[in-house]
């Protein structure tokens, strides 16, 4: 069992369904987190401001307001990680939430294991966010952000400028889902946010250079219909 770091980590759960709130709370408390709850956005905002949680789990389908506006407001004064829960079929709300500043998402119904994995990843990012690492190690590769250099099994790998920019954009938020729009904006600029085929082509190049099996990537993961996620450690 993975013991949570000291001092106590606080998680705020904003969800209108009591049964879901109950099992999420149970799971988080079992993992040693301190949990506070809110039924709606108004209450959630007060809790978030007063209890200063380390992580927010937010349901998007709340009866008293738009969760995406809530995230936008929150991002005005807080950088706390947000994991959204979505029951809707379409991807639009998830993308909108991620674009608004959410860090990760889960589609209902989800399993407890999934939830806990995402929570751990988000908290890890939060603790790592403070001290900026200049060298990222993943698989056989090591990316030196200061020297703008990539080694694979000790050998330098040649990356074109665009490939490097794309990798750097992903590596800047390890474990976090980045939407197509965010990546296109970061790498190609505001005029290219509709050009998804750039991403497909360069992601293919990067995988061929970094992954042992480009068709089954371990680090440059696809979030189908939404975007990509860079992970340093292959999940189970």
């Amino acid at each position, binding site marked *: 069992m993975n013991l949570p770091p000291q001092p106590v980590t606080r998680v705020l759960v904003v969800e209108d369904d009591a049964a879901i709130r109950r*099992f999420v709370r149970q799971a988080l408390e079992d993992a040693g987190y301190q949990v506070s709850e809110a039924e709606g956005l108004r209450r959630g905002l007060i809790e978030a401001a007063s209890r200063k949680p380390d992580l927010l789990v937010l349901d998007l389908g709340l009866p008293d307001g738009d969760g995406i506006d809530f995230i936008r407001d929150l991002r005005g004064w807080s950088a706390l990680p947000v994991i959204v829960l979505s029951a809707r079929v379409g991807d639009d709300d998830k993308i909108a939430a991620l674009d608004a500043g959410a860090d990760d998402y889960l589609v209902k119904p989800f399993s407890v294991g999934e939830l806990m994995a995402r929570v751990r990843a988000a908290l890890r990012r939060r603790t790592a966010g403070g001290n900026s690492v200049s060298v990222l190690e993943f698989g056989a590769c090591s990316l030196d952000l200061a020297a703008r250099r990539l080694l694979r099994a000790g050998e330098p790998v040649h990356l074109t400028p665009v490939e490097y920019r794309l990798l750097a954009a992903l590596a800047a938020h390890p474990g976090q889902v980045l939407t197509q729009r965010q990546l296109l904006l970061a790498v190609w600029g505001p005029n290219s946010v509709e050009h998804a085929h750039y991403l497909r082509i360069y992601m293919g190049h990067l995988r061929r250079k970094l992954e042992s099996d480009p068709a089954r990537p371990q680090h440059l993961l696809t979030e189908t219909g939404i975007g990509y996620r860079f992970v340093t450690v292959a999940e189970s």
Partner: protein
Amino acid sequence: MSEEPLRPDPDALLAAARAADARAERGRLKIYFGASAGVGKTWAMLDDAQRLRAGNVDLVVGVAETHGRSETAALLQGLECLPPRTVTLHGRSLPEFDLDAALARRPALLLVDELAHSNAPGSRHPKRWQDIEELLDAGIDVWTTVNVQHIESLNDVVGGITGIRVRETVPDHVFDAASEVELVDLPTDDLLRRLSEGKIYLPEQAERAVRHFFRKGNLMALRELALRRTAERVEDDVRSYRLEHVAQDRRAVWQVSDALLACVGPDSGAERLVRAAARRAAQGGAPWHAVYVETPALQRLPEARRRAILATLRLAESLGAVTATLTAEDAADAVVAYAREHNLGTVVTGYALPGAATALWRRLRGHRSFGERVAVQAPEIEFMVIARQPGADTGPPVPDGAAAEDADRLARRARGYVWALASSAAVTVVATPLLRYFDLANIVMLFLLAVVAVAVRHGRRAALAAAVLNVLAFDFFFVSPRFTFSVSDAQYLLTFAVMMAVGLVIGQLTASLRYQARVAGYREQRARGLFEMARDLGRALTQEQVAEIGERAVARAFRCQTAMMLADSDGRLAAVSPDNDRFVPDAGLAQWAFDHAEAAGAGTGTLPGAPVLYLPLQAPMRTRGVIAVKPSGPRLLMIPEQRQLLDTYAALVAIAIERVHFVAVAQDTLLSIESERLRNSLLAALSHDLRTPLTALIGLSENLSAALARDGSPRGADATAIADQARRTAQLVNNLLDMARLQAGSVALRRDWQSLEELAGSAIRSLGPALDRHVVELRLPPDLPLIHGDAVLLERVLVNLLENAAKYTPEGSHLRVSAEREGERIAIEVSDDGPGLPPGDPERLFRTFTRGDAESSTPGVGLGLAICRAIVRAHGGEIEASSRPAPAHGAVFRWTLPHLDLPADAPASHAADCAP
């Protein structure tokens, strides 16, 4: 014309392109053209037909006139002949060409002899050339024969040469529109020899024919005419060939020759004038118009003459003219205005040689001829005069019914004279006692007043009569010596003269004013009728309302009976008010008019003998129905203006029907959008309400199972099973909801560029442990192009297919995803080396709720493949299943998606991205 190469006129090119299109659909007409009977046209045609028969062409003889000539009859052997229709006329039965049988038989090529033949009364068309037009429209090729004297515009010329006029004529446009004209020529001497040998007519007829028609001089002239007409056609062919084929830069612009305006007058030579104008226009290939200007003076013509004029206008129309009758005070003004308005460069008019006395009188009056007046007003217009030969022709046949109207007119006129007499008497009676108090000069005023009154009520002739009567009465009863016509004081002669003159002038002015007022009133009435109908149509909400308003408006404006028939979606007509007791329209003729989008019935070229006119309601998009008009008198349909007005009404009604139709279409669309919105929100709500409790169920049972596991309870497995079942239920809910959305057709694809490698990778990842016991192999060529589609849905297809394959194959089986580009499509295969598909039609697997094995305990409702098919089809692709042929085994699911080219700005590879 400039010598420089000029750009071709785009309109001419467009017209050529359209003509080429029309030719492609229409049948081709070939005409065997000869100078006279007996040159061997029918023989040549049949001879060609025999040759074609050898080449297995679907060829039928509709009509072939052998005229009892054995060598011609021999050529009919072996050809399929259409049995003739028998028409009984005046107790005799005549064989006639059977148009409907020919249309039903639909041969590739039909032979119909004698293009100029007039059909027996009661046939669908009065003329055979109209039958042939219909055959050509139906896409049937036709061969036919015609002699030169039957060509409409040459009719006069031939009549002038031979002294024999034929009534059976063929409009020039039919001849000109023929795809091919073959001249059947025979030297005159040979023809005469054949005639004397009895090869042309039966012997007893031959002699009479020779004396009348087959004189050598005649035959030579006819032969020359035929040769020249053919030569003209060849020239046309060359010109149209040039237009179509000569390199554009080498072609000089073809200047449109001046369009003609023929002025039809009341004189008997008008028909000749019209034919001459038609000939001129045809030579120049120019459009032409024929107008008749109805001045107040011409208003007073007897009915029979006016009808003759209208008949002449109809002749002009059949010769290809645009016709109109204009109402104006002065013919020259009206003609100049019309010519300028329609951009007609040449005015053609007839000229009758006046008698010497008339000419002198005109000169003395300083009277300017029509031509002079046109020339003064519009020097830019060319003026062409055709000499008239009074009595040379009798004009086109005048329809009956004129006599009755003339009698009516005479009765009116007689009433006018009675009134003139009465007014004269009344003024005399009233004025006699006044003579004591008033001067004679004032009494005259009373008489003048009476003339004005009569002129206002009864027109010019009555006014003239009143003026004369009043002068006489004034002289007789008032001027001394009274009660005699003699005058003692000569100054009264001046009074009489002035009185007479003033009476005449006033009478004339008043009558023409009255005429103008009547014309204005009539115009206003027309305009008001149209306006009222347009206003009512604007308010109509259903097709039935439109039809009813149209029926009423037409009936009111034309004083006729009407019935409206609307077409259903299959193009079948149905009367709007079937209980219409006014008259029952002929359904067959109405359908014909609708199908051909052409007027039929009374006064048209199709069954003109019918009592009812059928006008198609032509709207911009399509013909919407037919209006049947039963006029009270034939005049309604004779006057071009009335017909045009009727067409205007029909067009307004048609547009209104179309508007109502599209309003209904728009409402339907709105309704379906609304119901789709409702369906989508229902699905979304359902999805939320089903997922939320399932989420709780899964989460709670997992927590429970974790807690029980910690406590070492044996019930831990139960909790895990609950979680598994809940997860499976969630999967089922997902499938059902997806299927509902896909089947409703309400899925909006979020299309974008996708890499198949990426989709397959994430599909494998999302299946996770489900594939642990199988070997999954990806065979994707590195140069596989990107796919344009919805990432989530395409991944869903891969997930379903892989999951399916894993479910129905034993452990350790190999699953393979491969793809390749095949031309404009990308083919993707998901295959395995398991047992293959269950026996039976593989198509059945894609139906909803079908599983490979109905009794199988393998979980999952058979929605997976149905969803795959729905998704692939939504992307414009197809999916099918098959088993590998023996000895190999396994199932293959192969789907294709359309290949699209990447946008031009795609980063080709590293081209735009140089090394750092």
